[in-house]
Every structure is written in structure tokens, then in C-alpha cells.
């Protein structure tokens, strides 16, 4: 037999079997809590969509050339991705580390921190990819026209979700207490969430805010989803997508470094 089965190879870095083991654990665990997670991950952005869409929609009918409901429906996709990846990553990682001691068990198996972080972030990205489509579907029910470009939205969600999941893991790895998460939520996530062109276009904001928004991954996700729904914008979207990939790669390494510092002494 010429091919050595994967299980019998000398272990290396970022092995598929190790990452797969972490994913299996997440998937089996998900079977016990999928209802509540699915409820919160889909209902929350839908409420935002309905509240802003119909609330502001009654005052403003067209924004940036789009029907306001369409504008918000596409913008809320990025919010759904953010919420369904960064928060479970922050809280889930911290709880598994501090209270459930899950990582002690996983790292005692032939799994390294790098594989642990990668597996967990991949799983959250997959979830975010699906949950992020909920506002789009609700938007379609309320009049958003379906388009072929929307088929790319799960992929956009996956890449953005991976970056946000890694950001959440890095935050959990970096902070010492779960109560400190409030600082991050108020000082980092809320501003990112508001200055991303989700509920209103950035063109009305001061120039320096618009410039800073270019560094906001959520802004690039919003742009990509909107363009996927209403028409691609060539190199601008190549840049948007590239930014999300770079964001994901950077935060992946930051998350691994933060967790190695936390888990290995």
C-alpha cells in the first residue's frame, strides 16, 4: 500500500484531522443548542431590519439611490454576520477556557492551539455564513428583488465571519475577565457597527470618519453584500473582498498568538 493513512503520518502543523476533530466537537455540541442560537441569530437582525426599515423607511424612502428597505436589508446582513460570529467567539472561548476547562481536554489530545483556534473559527464562520442570509431572505419577503449576485453572499459572509470569529477569540484570549468584555462591546464593536454604512450612507459623515470607515471590515462587508445584490462594482469589490481576506488572515494569527499565551504557560 503506497498511501499512508492520515492517522499514521508523523503529525505536522494545521492537520486536517485535528481541525476536523475540533469541528466535530462543535457540530455535535451545536445539536444540543441550535434552536436558541438560530432564534437569536436570525430574529435579532430581523428586528433591526424591520425597526429601521419601517421606522426610518416611513421618513426616508430612498437612500444612496436605493429603496431604504433594500438598503437596510442588505446592510443588516453584515450586522448579522458580525453578531453571530464575534459574540459567540468571545463568550464561547472564554467560557470554554475559564469555566468548562474544555481546552485542557482538547489540548491533551493531539491538537495544537493553532488547530483549535482554526477549527473553532471555521465553525463560527460557517454558522455566520448561513445566519447572515436571514435579513436578505426577510428583505425579499418585504420586496427586495432577488438577484443572481446574492448567491455570493454566503461566501462573503463566511470570509467576514471568519475574521470576526478570530477577532472574538483574540479578545477572549487577551482579556482577563469576562466583565471586561463590556469595554470592547461599547468602545469597539458598537462604533464599528454604526460606522459601516448599514443603516445610513457614510457620505453624510465628516471626511475623517469616512476615511476611518475604510479600515472597518464591516464597511467592506456591507459594500460587498450591497453590490452582490444590486450590481458588482469591479475593482472596488476586488478591494473589498481582498480587505476581508487580509482581515481574516491577520486576526487568525492574532487569535492564535493570544490563545497560545493564554493556554500554554
Amino acid at each position, binding site marked *: 500500500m503506497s498511501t499512508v*493513512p*492520515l*492517522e*499514521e*503520518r*508523523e*503529525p505536522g502543523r494545521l492537520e486536517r*484531522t*485535528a481541525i*476536523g*476533530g*475540533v469541528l*466535530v*466537537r462543535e457540530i*455535535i*455540541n451545536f445539536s*444540543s*443548542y441550535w434552536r436558541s442560537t438560530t432564534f437569536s441569530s436570525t430574529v435579532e437582525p430581523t428586528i433591526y431590519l424591520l425597526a429601521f426599515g419601517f421606522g426610518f423607511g416611513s421618513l426616508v424612502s430612498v437612500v444612496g439611490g436605493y429603496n431604504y428597505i433594500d438598503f437596510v436589508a442588505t446592510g443588516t446582513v453584515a450586522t448579522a454576520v458580525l453578531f453571530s460570529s464575534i459574540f459567540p467567539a468571545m463568550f464561547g472561548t472564554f467560557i470554554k477556557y475559564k469555566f*468548562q*476547562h*474544555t481546552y*485542557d*481536554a*482538547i*489540548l*491533551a*489530545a*493531539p*491538537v*495544537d492551539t493553532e488547530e483549535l483556534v482554526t477549527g473553532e473559527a471555521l465553525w463560527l464562520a460557517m454558522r455566520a455564513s448561513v445566519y447572515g442570509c436571514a435579513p436578505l431572505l426577510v428583505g425579499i419577503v418585504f420586496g427586495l428583488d432577488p438577484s443572481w449576485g446574492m448567491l455570493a453572499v454566503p461566501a462573503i459572509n463566511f470570509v467576514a465571519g471568519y475574521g470576526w470569529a478570530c477577532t472574538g477569540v483574540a479578545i477572549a484570549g487577551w482579556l482577563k475577565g469576562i466583565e471586561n468584555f463590556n469595554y470592547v462591546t461599547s468602545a469597539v464593536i458598537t462604533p464599528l457597527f454604526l460606522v459601516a454604512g448599514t443603516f445610513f450612507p457614510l457620505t453624510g459623515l465628516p471626511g475623517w470618519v469616512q476615511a476611518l470607515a475604510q479600515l472597518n471590515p464591516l464597511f467592506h462587508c456591507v459594500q460587498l453584500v450591497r453590490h452582490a445584490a444590486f450590481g458588482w462594482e469591479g475593482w472596488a469589490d476586488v478591494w473589498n473582498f481582498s480587505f476581508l481576506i487580509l482581515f481574516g488572515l491577520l486576526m487568525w494569527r492574532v487569535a492564535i498568538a493570544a490563545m497560545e499565551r493564554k*493556554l*500554554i*504557560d
Partner: protein
Amino acid sequence: MNDRAGCDPFGVPPTPHALELSHVVKRYGEITAVNGLDLVVPDGACVGLLGPNGAGKSTTMRMLTAQTIADEGQITVLGHELPGDSKAARARMGVVPQLDNLDTTLTVEQNLVVFSHLYRVPKARRKAAIERVLKIANLGERRDSKVDELSGGMRRRLLIGRALIHQPQLVLLDEPTVGLDPQVRQELWALIDLLRSEGVSILMSTHYIEEAERLCDSVTIVSHGSAVAVGAPADLVVEHAGRDAVEIYGSPERLVEVEAEMAKEGFPTRRTGTSIAVLGLDDAAGRAPAGERRPANLEDVFVLLTGEEIA
């Protein structure tokens, strides 16, 4: 265990020692948790790592899975140098943690499925591996029960079973019976004894002396991060405490006097809480004090050598 050759995937030749630590040091700032520790687990043996709380047992256990990295010294596990080769070593050993870290919302069987993946049990063998562990841990009838619904003893058996899913050659047991009632403890001793009889190498940290006496071929007593005695339990007793001890009871003041008198006579003593145990009486002849005579035990040695009360 049967068919263990099939779980020796990395072609490392067998070594006489399942595990070897040589002059291992681990510091946390000013504190030296492990201070030049030497420790050997011969292949197929059950070795007890015996020490009071804070002696460095848990740090040592973490170093064996490379979750703690030693500052100095050498660690070899199943022929693999740590920390560089730790992943290969971890693939061939099982770890039973002191703290219960089962997935509590999953069933017994789901927990085992998860760890069969994490420990890379090949797909074709996965079902048989789970059945085998359910049988060893005597949890076959509770396979569909959620961990939350299990008793403390069942959870411990599942923790041990989980560590055996890939038929490891070495098992690390970190305080395996801490906090359990005597009946459950006996159940677990039977389970650990079964592993011993099947030739699995075991390193078991404990501060329960009886546990070490019953299960271990040899013990390493650690104090302040260093090994202070190594040997078979019965040999250590004879070497350090003699065959018999004499217990002398009295008021606290009287016990202080007895301690001073015995020190003057050159006999080692240790406090038991309610009495003073006088040790090292093998050559005492007529100088042995009057009191309640009993066989010396490993606890006498433990307290004598560590100079600390058992937590």
C-alpha cells in the same frame, strides 16, 4: 490492552521507559513550581506521584502534555522529546484531568464520539472503540444519558473511559478520585487496576496515600517541586519509617514533650493530629517508647519526608 500495536502510529521503537523527566525545572516569576524533578515511569508500570498540595504535581502533569513548557531539563514521553514532539506523544497517551471537563449537554456516547475524532481513531474502528470504552467504564446502559444526568462516580468513569478511546500506551491520571466517596473510589481503583493488568503504563498523581499504596508499583514523593524519595511503597516504608510505629497519645503539651524526648533519643516522629507517631524503631531494642504499636505505613513516610500535613 488488546491490539495496541495498531495505535502506535508513528513507528517509534519501544523504550524501556514510558516516560522520563530529567532535572526538570519550571518557574513562575519568583516561584519555582518544579525544581529539578527526576521521574521515571517504566514501560507497563503504575507510578504514583505523591505530594501535598502545591508540591508541583499538577504543573508536572501539564508539562507532560506540553500545556506547560519546562524552563530547564528534559522530558521524554513514549520516546518523543517534549515539547517539540509532544503532539506525537499526545496521540499515544490518554489524560484523565483532575477537573471534570466533559461536555455536559452531550450524552455519554456523544462525548466518546467527539474524543474518538480528536484522538484520530480511524473511522472503521470508531464504533468498536466506543463500545469497548462503554464496557470498560460500565456505562453501556447510560450511553444515551446526558452527562448532566450522571452521578459523580459515573462522570469520573466516563472521564477515564474517554482517555482510553484510542487505546493509549500511557495514561496520566491527575488526582483521579479526589472528592469522591469511598465506594466510588473503590470502583475507580478497580478500573485503574484493570488498566494495570492490561499492561498500560500509568502515572497517577495523588495525595491519597492509600490509593498510591494499593495501585502503584512505585511512588515518587515530591516536595517543593523535587523528588524526595523514589521506590516501591513497601520498600519506602521500611527504609524511611521502619517496620513498626508507636503512637503516643496525650494532651497537646504532652505531645510536645514526647516530640522533644524522641528527638533527643534520635527517633524520627510525626504528628497524626491526635498523637505522635514514633518511627525508625527497628534498631531501638529496649529504647522503644511505650504506646500503641502498629505497622508503619506510607503516610508516615509521606509526612516525614515532605514535612507537611496532608491536605
